[in-house]
């Protein structure tokens, strides 16, 4: 019963655990910028692949194209040149196998918590009774039981994030695409959500691609980090984060290896993105 949305029958047939779940091959992206009155290169000859079950961070300053790449994986943007694949197949339409999380919590303010969490199930035509069950179960997992009937505006920022997380988990996704999901939170709350999310990731065996500009966040959570250079956006380095799991998100930042890795990432970022006085 729990696996009812995991995979379609078709992709089950060609399921191959050794094949990367996501890949980008020679991706370029250009778009017309009305301000500059010319085409801008957002991504330049970018290739990477994400293996099944991995926790990958895309790290870079704003405007480096990391969100554009994430949107390509979500099937919201098509690359101008090159191809992005999900389970080996080119992504040409919104990727409904992926759960997509944005920086703002993106809850529908006119829907109560339960209706927000149940939205992806509703869109997929899951019957109301089953929907209710799944929603109750997942709200329980994120510690929001009893808040089913609240409107998002009645919740704190942290609770809204949890609702967003519940909405991701309710479909049992293979793949979670996150665009700075813990951006606008205070440090303690952020650490708590980091810990909870890491636990959910290891329990469920999902693949996570995570966009961030925060070095510490990338080292705390990810198994591998792609460092982006901007203007035009491209990958500068790929760095393995060999810190063992399970990680204690509060303690790990004081370990020598953590410091070493975050230093290294910062150096890469600096080299890739020399400071340009602009604004």
């Amino acid at each position: 019963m729990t696996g009812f949305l995991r995979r379609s029958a078709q992709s089950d047939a060609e399921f191959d655990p050794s094949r990367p779940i996501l890949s980008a091959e020679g991706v370029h992206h250009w778009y017309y910028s009305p301000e500059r009155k010319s085409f801008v290169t957002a991504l330049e000859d970018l290739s990477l692949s994400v293996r099944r079950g991995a926790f990958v961070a895309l790290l870079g300053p704003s405007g480096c194209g990391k969100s554009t790449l994430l949107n390509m994986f979500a099937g919201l943007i098509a690359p101008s040149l090159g191809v992005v694949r999900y389970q080996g197949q080119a992504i040409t339409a919104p990727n409904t196998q992926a759960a997509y999380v944005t920086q703002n919590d993106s809850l529908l303010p006119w829907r109560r918590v339960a209706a927000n969490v149940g939205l992806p199930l509703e869109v997929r035509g899951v019957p109301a009774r089953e929907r209710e069950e799944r929603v109750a179960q997942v709200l329980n997992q994120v510690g929001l039981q009893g808040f089913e009937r609240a409107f998002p505006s009645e919740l704190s920022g942290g609770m809204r994030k949890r609702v967003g997380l519940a909405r991701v988990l309710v479909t049992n996704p293979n793949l979670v695409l996150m665009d700075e999901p813990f951006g606008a939170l205070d440090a303690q709350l952020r650490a708590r959500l980091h810990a909870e999310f890491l636990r959910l990731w290891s329990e469920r065996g999902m693949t996570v691609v995570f966009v961030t500009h925060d070095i510490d966040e990338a080292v705390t959570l990810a198994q591998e980090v792609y460092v982006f250079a901007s203007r035009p956006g491209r990958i500068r380095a790929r760095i393995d984060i060999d810190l063992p799991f399970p990680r204690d998100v509060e303690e790990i930042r004081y370990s020598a290896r953590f410091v070493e890795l975050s230093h290294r990432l910062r150096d890469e970022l600096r080299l890739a993105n020399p400071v340009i006085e602009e604004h």
Partner: protein
Amino acid sequence: MNDRTSPATDSVPDQDPALRARIEQGRRETIAAWRRQRQWVWVGKILFPLAFLGLWQYASDRWIDPFFVSNPVDVAIRLWEWLLDGTIVGTAIETLLSAAYGFLLGGAVGIVLALLLGRIFWLDEIIRPFLTALYSLPRLALVPLFIIWLGIGAAMKITLTSVIVFFIVFYTTYAGVRDVPASLINLLRTMGASRFDIVRKVILPSAGVFMFTGLQVSVPYAVTGAVFGELVVGSSGLGWLLRRSQNNLDSTGVFAGLIVIMCVAGAISFCVTMLQRLTSKWRMEVSAPVM
């Protein structure tokens, strides 16, 4: 153990009784002052219109010739007569229906077009300059054209009303559709939602506030459209009633007609407000404590 600065008076058993009494008295006085103020507002609400009517009644025949301003008693008598002989019901229903049909038609077309142009960018670029050009026309200047096309009956009034309502509802709803956060739409797309799903689950609720503002604002304009049509050429309805009274130099009749028009606009406005209450509960609950 007595903390004299503490405001928590109710639950402290060993508090100085004199202090306690003083605080209790202060609390009662605060509440009483608030009540008195509320009462005065209510008295004012009733007195102000009464004073207005009284002044009108007094001034008429003393300061101003009643030929121009009539007086409240005569207007009330006239309304009563019209109510008895069926004039009000007949004309008001005529005007109300023209206004309501025009309102529904103009509102529906406005909303649908706003959804289309708000979401389909190339269509928007083609169509909207054209609409903007039309918008610059005073709608009432279209009356001669509508009379040539449709005669002087209900069709003309409904068309005029719907054109007036259309522009108001279109522009407000369009602003609402453009205001929908792209992140919400993208979210629904990644869930595999159809275009229809996106409109129904995101765009309409999100743009709803703008849409209802447009509808609410256009109610008096809808009545204006219907009444204006009747006033110029109609042979029935409240506008016609006004014109007949004017032709008879009957200011009492004109005032009575204006009051009926207010009631008609009030009726439509009430319906829109009720519909809005039903559909925007989430917003009401947020703003309720502030009120």
